[in-house]
């Protein structure tokens, strides 16, 4: 269970410091949750608060009772984060080495570690590419490699920040299928309204606030109307 209490995050603007996200009270327990909203609405900040990549200026965020500010390391071992750009996520030269990096604390023995890494890459259909440079992989393959590396640490919650933004249709479908099969709790921020509906609950974030929270189809309709209204008035 993820819980936000009286959370406010402030940001520096030309006009001075102002709140960029305000969440009075929010509990996230469903296993598939999506977050939609315009660029700059506060989606990414909301997601980063969940694993402590961003910290609240006021209020608290806790995951299974662990405070993200006071117990950040313990939270990050439970909550993994997938970035929009997989090249920001992959820190080693090949998918195999990157997954092995994630597995270092679980497997001290190199042979066992390699075997576990190859098993995981095989699950993602990436075993033939295990030793290739991450720069030689397609966008979809990179995103899957980043996902494999993140899942290797066995998180109980997976937070994904616009995971399909850089992918073509085929790779987006591949990613959606892969995500659907995961046992973890998934919280996904996305502009892809089809991907958003692969959830049981959808939050619409606008101007730093959760303005709608409910069933995905209704949330998407609300968001379309909101976007049309904003586009019409500008």
């Amino acid at each position: 269970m993820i819980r936000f209490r009286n959370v406010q995050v402030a940001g520096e603007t030309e006009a001075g410091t102002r709140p960029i996200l305000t969440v009075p009270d929010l509990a996230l327990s469903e296993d598939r949750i999506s977050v939609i909203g315009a660029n700059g609405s506060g989606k990414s900040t909301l997601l980063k608060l969940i694993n402590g990549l961003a910290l609240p200026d006021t209020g608290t965020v806790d995951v299974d009772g662990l405070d993200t500010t006071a117990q950040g390391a313990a939270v990050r071992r439970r909550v993994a984060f997938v970035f929009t750009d997989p090249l920001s996520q992959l820190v080693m030269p090949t998918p195999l080495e990157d997954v092995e990096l994630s597995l270092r604390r679980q497997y001290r023995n190199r042979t066992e570690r390699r075997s576990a890494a190859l098993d995981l890459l095989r699950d993602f259909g990436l075993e033939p590419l295990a030793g290739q440079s991450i720069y030689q992989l397609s966008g979809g393959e990179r995103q899957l490699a980043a996902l494999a590396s993140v899942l290797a640490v066995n998180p109980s919650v997976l937070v994904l920040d616009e995971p399909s933004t850089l992918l073509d249709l085929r790779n987006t479908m591949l990613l959606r299928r892969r995500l659907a099969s995961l046992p973890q709790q998934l919280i996904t921020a996305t502009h892809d309204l089809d991907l958003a509906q692969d959830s049981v609950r959808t939050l619409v974030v606008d101007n730093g606030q959760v303005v709608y929270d409910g069933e995905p189809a209704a949330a998407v309709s609300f968001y379309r109307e909101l976007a049309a209204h904003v586009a019409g008035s500008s």
Partner: protein
Amino acid sequence: MRGHAHLISAYVAGSSWLHRTPLLLKFLLLAGTGVVVLALPGLLPRALVLAAVVVIHLAARLPAVRLLQPIRSMWLFLLVVLAYRWWADSAAGAAGVVAGLLACIYAANLLTATTEVQRLLDGLVAAVTPLRRFGADPERFALTIGLMLRSIPFLLGSLHDVRDAARARGLGASPRAVVQPVLIGAVAYARQTGDALAARGLGEKAAD
């Protein structure tokens, strides 16, 4: 970003005798090269060490072209060192210093080009494990060194890219036009790497 701007070579997959040599021996070869270069000034001994390291490189069937990479990356630095030592000492002394520098870089290349990063990290963890009783975290230490090794090619590639971009705008001679973007890029890279590790809960204190 240019992937070829490597001072220290990335791993070259292979099964040569040097690939199979235990990590400790390869490390001793690197340390020994440094000690000999420092202990024996002069052109002849350093040229012999350089020749020996080059022979090992070729005997391990590593691509000969990799021997040119450090020279391509460092030619200006080597030229300055050569000119200064020639002026301050002698032509032979200057050549000896450059030969010693190249010998050390090639010896470091032998280690990194024939040892996978994970194996290198395992070796570092084993070396640091006795310090655990003093509060050291071997995994964090190894991760730090591993990331440092990874960052060298990135920073060199970034330097080349920025220099090319500056030249394209006629700013090639301005150090500010090169140094400032490289520094900003380095800070951004460090933050990005930190976030990437935090995203997986890596690099945190084991007991936290």
